């Protein structure tokens, strides 16, 4: 193998290792701990018309220590029920999570009447940091 050919392999390999090292060891962060979801105006009217289109995701993923506060804002002109709470028009509801688990809530903004919040542990280990970054990148890309 020639020196030039070795360089073509070594440089991308080194770059990949540096990127992997950064992804695994650099601290992860998000701009806010609040993960905001807005219930738009007309949601109740759509539900009453039998519209089954999901306005909010049926499963919301949060991560402890990062985005671990669910924030719902009711922009509809009709009250919305989320779990044990009723949000009147214009009201917001902030729900912080402290334990990693899957939580099911009744939610009138969903056609199924249900919403799941999946709270995952803080990605402390290098591999979990890498996985978290990849998923964030993918979800931001598809959002």
């Amino acid at each position, binding site marked *: 193998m020639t020196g030039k050919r070795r360089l073509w392999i070594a440089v991308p390999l080194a770059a990949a290792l540096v990127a992997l090292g950064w992804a695994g060891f650099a601290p992860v962060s998000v701009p806010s701990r609040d993960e905001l979801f807005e219930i738009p105006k007309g949601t*109740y009217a759509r*539900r*009453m018309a*039998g519209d089954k289109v999901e306005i909010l995701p049926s499963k919301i993923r949060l991560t402890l220590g990062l985005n671990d506060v669910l924030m719902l804002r009711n922009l509809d002109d*009709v*009250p*919305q*029920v989320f*779990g*044990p*709470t*009723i949000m*009147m028009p214009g009201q917001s509801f902030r729900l912080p999570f402290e334990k990693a688990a899957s939580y099911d*809530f*009744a939610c*009138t903004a969903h056609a199924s*009447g249900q919403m799941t919040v999946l709270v995952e542990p803080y990605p402390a280990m290098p591999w979990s940091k890498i996985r978290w970054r990849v998923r964030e990148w993918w979800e931001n890309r598809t959002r």
Partner: protein
Amino acid sequence: MPAPALALQDTDGKPLGLERFRGKVVLLAFGFSSCGEVCPITLATLAGARKKLGDDAADVQVVYVTVDPERDDAARMKKFLGSFDATFVGGVGTRAQIDRAQKGYGISSTKQVYADGNYTIGHSSSIYMIDRSGGLRAVMPYGHTVDDFVHDLKILLRT
């Protein structure tokens, strides 16, 4: 937060508003007499909670409002609710009155028509807990037990 107003009729033909029950804790829910799933379970649970409360049950009023005014007239609702607990009060009215009541509490309902023309109604199934002074204090999602209701009712009855 004051509970949204109701302007309906009860199953004896009298005007039905929440102010009639000031001084009592009100459990307000919406459903229909032909419901084969959620409503009978909800009503049986609420009847069980009242029974378990003993003498305190005198201060707890269940109000069940129909989402099916086309079929649920006063007599039908009275018979349906009476099979669970004779003290339950039914809310009936015109389609417009029921729509206003549903909208006030964010209760959605959608009709699903069968091939034979009969229909069922999918509807929000939470139970609203209103305190002695008419304040909306909590919402109990469908599926809770008699003991869950008794626990919360005891707290509300003390306040």
